[in-house]
């Protein structure tokens, strides 16, 4: 590896001008977005710098416990973001999402690092943390989309669900179409990225590897693995969480609990 060219503080400051340009657009268009823009830019800088120090520490210490602890923390933050993106508060889904995400992401990341990349140990933080981070980051968006779609469709399509139940349909039969739509809502973005990658956009990981001097063909092979990994993790996480959460939307009589405005116990 040749290593990327260094970016000094002055150069970082110049990059900050891009944020200033966005702020100018906000002022000019009276968008009132200056404050969130400044807060966002500062958070971006602080969080990434902090993560840089954490990663440096984790890479130096090379402890499986610390790697797994950091991984758990990433999943905790991802679940918090999913919770923030889903409006429904009556049906519990946070703990389920956390446990499913933790299991699926750990299993997929371990297969990729241990079997496909072949690092030793499989949890080598230089590989495990960035790969797991990509899985967590991409799948959490899909999970948020799917859960939100499931809850909102069950509410808005109450008549459809209860028509089926009233005729003797099971909760599963009554919600099958809604669950399928919710699954698709979560999975289509990652399937679209499979089709668009390399043509419409160059993903960050590949770009980063190329910038740091890797052979583009090696960077591409890594990227292919990552894209496949993302599709699998999205599909498995969303399917498992929806299967569990769907049941909680129905009561012991297979009656719909989640409704517009009110919920029966």
């Amino acid at each position, binding site marked *: 590896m040749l290593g990327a060219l260094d970016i000094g503080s002055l150069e970082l400051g110049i990059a900050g001008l891009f944020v200033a340009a966005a702020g100018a657009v906000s002022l000019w268009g009276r968008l009132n977005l200056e404050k969130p823009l400044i807060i966002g830019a500062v958070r971006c800088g602080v969080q990434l710098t902090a993560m840089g120090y954490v990663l440096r520490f984790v890479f130096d210490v090379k402890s499986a416990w610390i790697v797994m602890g950091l991984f758990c923390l990433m999943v905790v933050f991802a679940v918090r973001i999913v919770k923030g993106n889903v409006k429904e508060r009556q049906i519990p889904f946070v703990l389920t999402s956390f446990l499913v995400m933790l299991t699926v992401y750990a299993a997929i990341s371990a297969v990729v690092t241990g079997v496909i990349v072949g690092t030793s140990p499989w949890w080598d933080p230089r590989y495990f943390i960035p790969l797991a981070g990509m899985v967590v980051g991409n799948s959490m968006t899909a999970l948020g989309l799917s859960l939100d779609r499931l809850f909102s469709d069950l509410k808005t399509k109450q*008549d*459809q669900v*209860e*028509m*089926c*139940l*009233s*005729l*003797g*349909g*099971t909760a599963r*039969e009554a919600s099958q179409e809604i669950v399928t739509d919710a699954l698709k809502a979560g999975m289509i973005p990652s399937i679209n990225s499979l089709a668009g990658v390399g043509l419409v956009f160059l993903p960050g990981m590949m770009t980063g590897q190329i910038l740091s001097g890797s052979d583009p063909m090696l960077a591409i092979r890594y990227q292919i693995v990552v894209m496949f990994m993302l599709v699998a993790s999205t599909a498995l996480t969303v399917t498992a969480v929806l299967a569990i959460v769907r049941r909680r939307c129905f*009561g*012991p*009589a*297979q*009656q*719909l609990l989640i409704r517009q405005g*009110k*919920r*029966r*116990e």
Partner: protein
Amino acid sequence: MCFEFDQVSFSWPGGRTILDRQDMALPEGVFAVVRGPSGSGKTTLLRLLNRLEEPISGEIRYLGRRLADWDPPQLRQQVTYLQQTPFIPDLIVRDILLYPFRLGVNSGKIPPGDEMLGAMMARVHLEEVGLDESGAQLSGGQRQRLGLLRAMMAEPRVLLLDEPTASLDRETRIVVEKMAMDLCRQGVTIVMITHDGFVPEQVPVAEVTIQHGQVTVCL
């Protein structure tokens, strides 16, 4: 008895009491007409009978057996509820009518053929509607009658009808009421919400009144 209520209470979370420790009994084979002011809980009463709602206390029995002991799909196959505005999926009329046969609870049952479906549709003055026509194109009144036919498809023992004549003109309303009375004569227990002064004829009638959390049955 078809249905028995034993100290049944129901109220919405943080809201109105619909039923307050009510006892009631409804015999099999009757035509029960449910009346009461708007918001008194007529729809909720029907939904309690096939467990789309659950009482907060007390016990409801169907054919002497606690509702909670019935398998919910089996119960609802026997005690079928027709919504006030029936949901009609975007399918052709034949598929809408045969929808109950897609469900596991009716597996093994043989769906009626086109000739039988046509005859059933003629009974509710839907002979002008083709079986291959899209359900999305039907008027409110036609959808109401289609919903009623669909609810009858799997031959339930009890039909819970939530104002089935509300959106119908006088002539069609009489057709639907006659059909409900015919079903009752064939042994189907009918529980029907109505706002008008309809009184079933030549069938055993039960007048059910619900108001201020109290329900009374006059046979």
